[in-house]
């Protein structure tokens, strides 16, 4: 870290602004608000077919159920029957056709949540079943896509592959992931006078909810206010998804004139909502004897589920991260966006980037094993150069490349080479346990690829008592955004953080906001809030200069108060004086990210303001009898620029890493042959538990980090990139499996690498090629 000693707030490891509320149970979430008079509870009646026409629905049992007040379905929506964010292809209530098990068909309103949920199961729906497409292979074979396929191509990949001294091809399957935010989806809609609606909803994107609620009600944006103080976790699962629940609650409130709460239970949440996209990644690569990639062809096919949602930009980001840290001179990256009869898949931390990265890391690993080299050496020789070989397949020059020094530092700190030798020794000594180790890098592009999203607004009030109300378009989902932006404001005014209150995101306070997503929260909102502070500071300074007869350049905001020439005025005192002198102490702030431009048609340009980097070394042990495995040690070095708050950034790194471990090792989504998700609660869907945190885990932020771009205090975004540090665990498992296959064995391991997948991978080794288990492994680097 650069020297932050002089700072008051920025760069300090301050606790989360709500930490004292979290631990005492006093932090309020949507479901915790006192319930208003006349509140009705909604429950959703869902499809139990993957693909079918609805011939008829018999609601008589629902209507007769105790406590039921109203039933609403497609015909009851006054405006647009849609909650799709980009393309209007997501009906709120199925209108004659259902396209996945769990799709919303109708809603029941009742006097208690229990009565509503019981009644919602009582509808008798007469279906005419249609053929369902339930996996990527079938979708590709049948040409079932939600969007046209896209390709990025540079150079002559086919010729370069054919002309290289070695060729390989292969296929990798990577599963999806449920967000498993601890707070499930919830919305409460309150009818207000003159046709207006207030919605309290757990959302990363209040503005989008506002737009979709207004459209469903046939109203305009001014008629809908959406508010969210905090979410109990988001991870992308509350970017587009909450609109469905908010629209149903709002339509129900509009219809009954009563407030309506819609809180789905865990099972309904997991059945109804979309997840991280599963991918199938095929590759062909040509490379030289050192492992340098000469030409590569990557074909990505993702499971988008039944509708478009954000699958366009998610798949584009997957394409944009199919290079990771590697220069791919002759390259073709193709992306297919498969339509299947499953829940429509949505944003999830990394937004396609992790899947793209898995693709190229697999290629590198395959090359290394084929050539009998340490994969780390093959990674290194393919790294982007600093001054040449530094243009991405989409035409952006990598100007801020620090992966060489970052990986070198981690390699030494983690003792990678020595441990690699020990792992090989352990494996050569026989036994049913095998160990593996891998170091994998991360380079992640920061900015929304949809350029217009890269803007933010803030609203700042200084009150007469010197206390400060901060509001911005970003939402708090636990990532510490409110904490960081409050630190920025504290630093600007040189006041203690407890003078500042960051209030709930509210579409009535800051309009036209972007989703809090793409790791951009602090970058955008920190800058917007600072802009507002700068305006108010300038007004206060001008007033102080005039009032105390000091030159403007001699007015400074200090920890002791505002210094105006020789006068030192208490901040609150100055605020009051300014008010009395009729100076405005309120301002908006606005920011747009500079430098970025990107052509959505040609998929080229500079989509990202900068890149964030990191790397991890993981060592694992696995049981070759059962496929069970555990992480023995992980070392992480991550780049957060000049961290705004090292404690919060460490939290993002650690939490992101373990969430990635879950995605790649244990979190298996399993559908039955009829397309019903059978892993729809924590008893069947297993996110990492406490004991899954490695016994030894050394996590550091690079202490020389500094964003070369002019971001807020030269910090870097840190929300998504660390998730991909977990790819090191996946490759360590492959490394351990390879130990059973002898020299040049190339295990094929589907993710998530559950014990069963590991055992499958081991089983497939024997069919691959004979190897000598105790043969000499790997030529010296």
């Amino acid at each position, binding site marked *: 870290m650069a020297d932050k000693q002089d700072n008051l707030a920025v760069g300090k490891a301050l606790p989360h602004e709500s930490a004292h509320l*979290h631990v005492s149970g006093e932090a309020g979430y949507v479901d915790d608000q006192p319930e208003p008079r006349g509140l009705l509870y909604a429950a959703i009646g869902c499809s139990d077919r993957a693909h079918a026409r609805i011939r008829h629905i018999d609601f008589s049992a629902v209507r007769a159920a105790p406590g039921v007040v109203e039933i609403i379905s497609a015909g009851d929506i006054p405006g647009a029957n849609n909650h799709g964010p980009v393309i209007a292809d997501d009906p709120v209530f199925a209108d004659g056709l259902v396209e996945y098990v769990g799709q919303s068909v109708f809603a029941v309103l009742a006097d208690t949540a229990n009565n509503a949920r019981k009644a919602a199961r009582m509808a008798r729906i007469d279906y005419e079943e249609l053929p369902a497409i339930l996996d990527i292979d079938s979708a590709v074979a049948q040409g079932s896509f939600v969007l046209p396929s896209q390709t990025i191509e540079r150079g002559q990949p086919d010729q370069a592959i054919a002309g290289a001294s070695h060729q390989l091809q292969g296929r990798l399957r990577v599963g999806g992931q449920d967000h498993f935010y601890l707070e499930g989806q919830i919305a409460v809609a309150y009818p207000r006078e003159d046709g207006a609606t207030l919605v309290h909803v757990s959302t990363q994107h209040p503005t989008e909810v506002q737009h979709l609620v207004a459209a469903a009600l046939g109203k305009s944006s001014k008629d809908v206010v959406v508010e969210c103080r905090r979410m109990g976790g988001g991870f992308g699962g509350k970017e587009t998804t909450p609109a469905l629940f908010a629209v149903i609650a709002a339509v129900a409130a509009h219809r009954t004139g009563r407030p309506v709460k819609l809180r789905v239970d865990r099972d309904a949440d997991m059945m109804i909502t979309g997840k991280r996209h599963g991918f199938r990644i095929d590759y062909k690569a040509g490379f030289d004897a050192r492992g340098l990639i000469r030409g590569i062809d990557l074909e990505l096919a993702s499971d988008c589920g039944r509708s478009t949602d954000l699958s366009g930009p998610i798949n584009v980001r997957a394409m944009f991260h199919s290079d990771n840290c590697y220069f791919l001179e002759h390259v073709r990256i193709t992306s297919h966006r498969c339509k299947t009869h499953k829940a429509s898949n949505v944003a999830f931390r990394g937004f396609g980037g992790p899947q793209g990265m898995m693709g190229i890391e697999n290629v590198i690993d395959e090359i290394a094993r084929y050539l009998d080299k340490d994969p780390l050496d093959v990674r290194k020789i393919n790294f982007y150069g600093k001054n040449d070989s530094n243009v991405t397949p989409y035409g952006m020059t990598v100007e801020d490349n620090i992966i060489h020094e970052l990986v070198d530092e981690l390699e030494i700190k983690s003792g990678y080479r020595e441990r690699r030798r020990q792992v090989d020794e352990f494996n050569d000594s026989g036994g049913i346990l095998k160990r593996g180790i891998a170091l994998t890098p991360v380079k992640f592009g920061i900015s929304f690829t949809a350029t217009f999203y890269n803007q933010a607004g803030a609203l700042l009030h200084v009150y007469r008592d010197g206390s400060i109300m901060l509001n911005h378009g970003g939402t708090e989902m*636990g990532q510490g955004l409110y904490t960081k932006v409050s630190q920025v404001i504290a630093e600007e005014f040189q006041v203690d953080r407890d003078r500042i209150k960051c209030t709930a995101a509210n579409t009535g306070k800051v309009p036209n906001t972007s989703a809090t997503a793409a790791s951009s929260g602090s970058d955008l909102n920190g800058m917007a809030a600072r802009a507002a502070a700068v305006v108010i500071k300038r007004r206060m300074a001008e007033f102080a200069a005039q009032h105390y007869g000091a030159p403007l350049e001699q007015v400074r905001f200090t920890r002791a108060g505002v210094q105006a020439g020789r006068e030192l005025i208490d901040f609150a005192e100055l605020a009051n004086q300014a008010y009395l002198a009729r100076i405005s102490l309120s301002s908006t702030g606005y920011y747009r990210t500079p430098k970025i431009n990107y052509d959505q048609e040609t998929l080229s340009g500079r989509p990202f303001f900068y890149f964030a980097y990191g790397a991890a070394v993981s060592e694992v042990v696995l049981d070759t*009898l059962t496929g069970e495995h555990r992480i023995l040690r992980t070392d992480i070095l991550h780049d957060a620029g000049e961290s705004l708050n090292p404690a919060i950034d460490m939290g993002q790194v650690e939490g992101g890493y373990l969430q990635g471990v879950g995605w790649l090792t244990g979190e298996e989504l399993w559908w039955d042959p009829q397309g019903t998700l059978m892993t729809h609660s*924590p008893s069947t869907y297993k996110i990492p538990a406490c004991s899954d945190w490695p016994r030894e885990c050394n996590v550091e932020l690079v202490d020389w980090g500094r964003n070369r771009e002019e971001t807020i205090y030269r910090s870097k975004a840190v929300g998504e990139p660390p998730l991909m540090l977990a790819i090191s665990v996946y490759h360590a498992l492959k490394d351990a499996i390879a130990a059973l296959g002898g020299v040049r064995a190339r295990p094929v391991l589907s993710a998530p690498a559950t014990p069963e997948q590991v055992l499958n991978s081991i089983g497939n080794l024997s069919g691959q090629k004979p190897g000598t288990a105790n043969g000499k492994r790997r030529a010296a680097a």
Partner: protein
Amino acid sequence: MSATEHTGADNGTIRFLLDDNVHEVTDVAPTTTVLNYLREYLQRTGTKEGCAEGDCGACTVVVAEPDTQGVRFRSINSCIQFLPTLNGKALYTVESLKKISNGGLHPVQQAMVDCHGSQCGFCTPGFVMSLFALYRNSAAPTRDEIDDALSGNLCRCTGYQPIIRAARRMYDYGQDLVDEAELGRRLDKIRPGESLELSVENSSRVEVRDRYFAPAGLSELADLLVRHPGATILAGGTDIGLWFTKEYRDLPVIIYIGQVGDLDYIDETADRLEIGAAVSLTDAFAVLDKYYPDLFEIMRRFASPPIRNAGTLCGNIANGSPIGDTMPALISLGAVLVLRRGSQVRELPLDEFYPGYRETALQESEFVQAVQVPLRRGAGVHFRSYKIAKRYDQDISAVCGAYYLRLESGVVADARICYGGMAAVPQRARQCEDSLRGRHWDQATVEAAIKAMVEDYQPLTDMRATSGYRRRVAGNLLKRFYLETTGVETSVWAQHG
């Protein structure tokens, strides 16, 4: 204390301590969960619902009750605990902690703040309460003990590292104000001396009343079951709670056995252990561990402390799930059930208790009174049990295997091998056992036994594993058992980097 000094619970009134005050409840549906009662009736919204099935821990609260050493504090999942079962106990929620810390943050809470243990904060109250239970029960927990204590709490944000740190640091902030002696006296005053009976109108079924009985004596329990043959027998409620929260089932008559003093006993003799039906898994495991340390993996990986604190060993058995984790081990150890109907008592080997999927040999009005576990472990006896699941902690087995072997001069004299997850019920591998008996215990014998096992099971494919994996692993676990009898290290869980 004599019975006359009891103020006891009146018929129809649930009485427990909340923040040290006597809290009385009448006229709530017996299936009202503690969580819903806190949130909807008391507006104590600090306790959260994350899953309503006892798997995420956001709803964790702590219950204190008298025990032989004074008062014991135990975490439970409030989302599946029915409110009447709190009768006679003391309840602590996240809101209680400031009240036992002079209005400031409790040591556990302060450690969580200082270690940055919360991000989104939604799981945090549950973690705080599990840590509070750990704080009261342990002084310097190891990483293993911390992992175990927190195994029933899921956090999606932090990666757990800062919470583990807080679990170590919470002891640095001094003591809270809990006065166990005083608490014990207060608990004594509300100790239920009599049976509790509730009869409440059911809002969702007109003119029907839900009935709840918590008898105090064994014969009263037996009589009630004869009078109400269709009643739901409730012990820990860690499965029955889900019938209500997940399946919205009506449970018109519930008979709770947790207040029957005669069922809350562990009888240790020279050759067997008898564990009563009201004994929690936590207490049952503590004593089993003394005799069968080889059960460690099964016991450690059985659900989580909140579930083990509420759930009972006999409940796990009587529930009859094909994937209950205690049965394979108990069957291979030769456990026997004590069954009672009215005043008739009979014994039945556990091995004969499961005629079919989710079926038991219980007759109408009959219940499991106790389980007996033999303790004879002569020379040449080997015993192991293993659990295979996607996650180490708090997961349901794909396959669970237990192996009892008696060798005489290197030859298999007796073998009892039982698996869960391989059939509709926990089931012995008879063909496999037959192929072992009389053979020299070596690799060739084991390979032959694995082949024989193919005839024993036709496992299913489901979300936990394919049938092929189950088959393969069942065989490999026998191999592991063999290797362990020869001293080979086979467990990834014992490996350290």
